[in-house]
């Protein structure tokens, strides 16, 4: 798990942005858990997941995202996503992730809408 992912958490206004580097797989679970519970993300009402456009997200990675979305829903947090390739926008729509998280083409547009 040494360098599976690097997730930088920063606050932009009222939104906690999780900047996710690397491919997302089942091995990404501890990285997402740590980022979700980061002081800048913990307790915030809005989360923006920013993916690397080149990132590959497999079924294990989708399981990790569903886990995060389920926890965010329990905590009444809004989650938005940006940085996805056209391929993964299609995959996220197909598996139903878009019912729980809106997808935006850029950080700026997401932040403007999440305001």
């Amino acid at each position, binding site marked *: 798990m040494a360098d599976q992912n690097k997730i930088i958490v920063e606050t932009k206004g009222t939104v906690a942005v999780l900047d996710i580097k690397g*491919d997302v797989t089942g091995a990404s679970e501890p990285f997402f858990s740590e980022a979700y519970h980061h002081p800048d993300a913990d307790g915030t009402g809005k989360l923006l997941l920013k993916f690397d456009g080149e990132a590959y997200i497999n079924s294990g990675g*989708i*399981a990790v995202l*569903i886990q995060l979305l*389920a926890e965010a829903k329990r905590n009444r947090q809004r989650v938005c996503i940006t940085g996805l390739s056209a391929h993964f926008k299609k*995959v996220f729509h*197909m598996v139903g992730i878009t019912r729980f998280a809106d997808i935006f083409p850029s950080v700026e547009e997401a932040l403007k809408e999440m305001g």
Partner: protein
Amino acid sequence: MSKMDLASGYLFKGLGKEQLKRISEHTGEIEVKPGHEICREGESAASIFLLCRGAVELITSVNDHIELPVSIMREPGAMFGSSALIEPHVYTLTAKCQSSGSILHIDRLGLQNIMSGDDHCGSVIMKNLAAYFLARLKETRQELKIHFKTLLRSFRA
């Protein structure tokens, strides 16, 4: 990558030059374009594949409407379709090209004949195959655990 670069495939690690040469006699090369489907989940598996150039995505079908991404292969030497070597000789994943490239296809029956006539070759390939499937099993268990934890939390909430 030439046919003799078969040595870069995980399945053939530990084989000698002569053994690789015999396998290369049952190997062909195809050029592929984005969207090209190399093999389909559930279909009879006649070949094993080795990526020379490009990128290939492996996917599995959940139902008629949902396909899950399993992995992407971008490194030359990556192999797929190895379920061809195990009964009932059926592909367990669909492989689709994500970019232009070339792929080696190794005839399953030809390879099995070599393995039957050369105990060392057969043993090395099956050992490599077992290690690969064990790694896949670990990944699948990890994924199952994540779903299980999500379900448990949702029931407790």
